[in-house]
């Protein structure tokens, strides 16, 4: 046992980022051994982009609204996928641990619940980039529309939607921790519940007046309104960005609190060793 002669083996050499990096590495290993997982990440954003690209081409000839800015629908679909992939990236990374019954191993390690949360957000970012970047690049090739033409505001829109995706992912994961794997289908459904009021493809004003406050209570509506302001009017609406950021932070706080509370309750009830297939 030569290693036992070296106390460094047992010493705590790692800080937060070492442990977060370990969990991220485990998921990268998983993706490397399963190409269908990576293919699936890219498949839907690309198909969606192609579909909406053709719809855009049709509308360009028949709609004065779309004719104002050719890329408005493609930009909307790509940004919507940032939110969808962000949420799914968080939820699926969590569910991978549940499916492989690895939560017990993580719980009996130096990894704290906050670090676990952080590692899932890093994985969500990676999965989102893997999923959305190829579709964004193909949009340039197929339709001569570059979402990167949004310029610096794109970074803000991307970050705001990704963070909201994390918040929903945290709530979904908290639900799975509380009620078990029966709730995992929520990971696929949750995002579509807010799609009609997110003003993705149409302005908030299209919604009935009683539904508009619901729309403004989500960070998605100001982000997509802001996107249209850039593409159609050529203006960056800081008021919409500030609105989205404030609502985003509230949802992030709520999601993180729910996740950490559910983790605590799971530890209290002994569920961490039981949640799994």
């Amino acid at each position, binding site marked *: 046992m030569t290693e036992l002669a070296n106390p460094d083996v*047992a010493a*705590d*050499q790692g800080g937060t980022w070492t442990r977060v990096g370990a969990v991220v590495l485990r998921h990268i*290993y998983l993706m490397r*051994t399963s190409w269908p997982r990576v293919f699936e990440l890219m498949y839907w954003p690309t198909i969606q982009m192609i579909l909406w690209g053709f719809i855009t081409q049709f509308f360009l000839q028949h709609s004065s609204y779309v004719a104002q800015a050719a890329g408005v629908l493609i930009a909307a679909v790509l940004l919507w996928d940032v939110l969808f992939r962000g949420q799914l990236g968080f939820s699926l990374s969590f569910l991978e641990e549940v499916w492989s019954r690895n939560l*017990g191993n993580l719980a*009996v390690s130096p990894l704290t619940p906050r670090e676990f949360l952080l590692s899932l957000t890093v994985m969500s970012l990676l999965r989102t980039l893997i999923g959305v970047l190829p579709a964004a690049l193909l949009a340039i090739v197929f339709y001569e529309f570059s979402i990167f033409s949004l310029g610096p505001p794109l970074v803000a829109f991307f970050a705001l939607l990704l963070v909201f995706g994390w918040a929903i992912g945290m709530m979904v994961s908290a639900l799975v921790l509380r009620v078990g794997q029966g709730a995992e289908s929520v990971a696929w459904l949750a995002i579509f519940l807010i799609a009609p009021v997110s003003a993705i493809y149409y302005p908030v004003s299209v919604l009935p007046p009683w539904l508009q406050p619901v729309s403004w209570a989500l960070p998605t509506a100001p982000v997509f309104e802001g996107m249209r302001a850039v593409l159609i009017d050529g203006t960056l609406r800081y008021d919409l960005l500030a609105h989205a950021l404030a609502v985003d932070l509230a949802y992030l706080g709520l999601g993180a609190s729910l996740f950490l509370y559910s983790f605590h309750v799971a530890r209290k009830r002994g569920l961490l060793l039981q949640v*799994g297939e």
Partner: protein
Amino acid sequence: MRPLRPLVKSHVPRHLAGVSDPIIRVRNLGKQFDGFTAVHDVTFDVAAGGTTALLGANGAGKTTTLAMLLGVLLPSSGSVTILGHDMRRARHKAMPAVNFSSPYVDLPRRLTVAQTLRFFAKLFGVRDARTRAREIAAELELTAQMHQRVGQLSAGQKTRVSLAKALINAPRVLVLDEPTASLDPDTGDWMRSYLAAYQRASGCAILLASHNMAEVERLCDHVLMMRRGGIVDRGAPSTLIARYGRANLEEVFLDIARERRAGAEVAAQ
């Protein structure tokens, strides 16, 4: 029988030298689930270099006790202190020096053995995770399986990977739940020899739950007998065997599980 690889270095690691206080200190530990008492009033210590067994019939509270000790289950009452850290408040300070193996917790099946060991080495903050993974795999005769997925291994190989994971950080506290449950007699014997050698070399504290009484007699210097969530007897294996007037620990186990009194107690009456 297969010979053990040369395991034992004569000296104890510096971080364990001179430790005399209990590494594990459990006081009045209890757990209730919705009115059902799974564990009550469990108190014991394990010193550095000590190997303690938790014995009891199914449902006696062994796994619940181990789960509370590892911090994966919060106690309803009492306290667990490991390496001086209260596991309720500061478990993350103790965890880099703790590890476990249990048949109830799988390892990620889609990862290879090498990936699994590197992942856990990094998670526990081991310097040079790649080298450490290779070393521990060699010691547990897993080198040939390093690039196989864990899900493709035999039950015995999985058990050895689980033990390799449990030793990846050279823990000062090692918790083993049924460490040889799925092994054939030859591999089981090899594993027990390995654990005994490892324990002598490292001076770590081992807490073990097992239904294999011969294993407990061979590995453990102290036994805690559990029934209905509480400790009903304790002592060295030889002391318990003498106290109950039995030939081996298995007979003592049956006496306790069937609620027969100790032979010495009967004689005294």
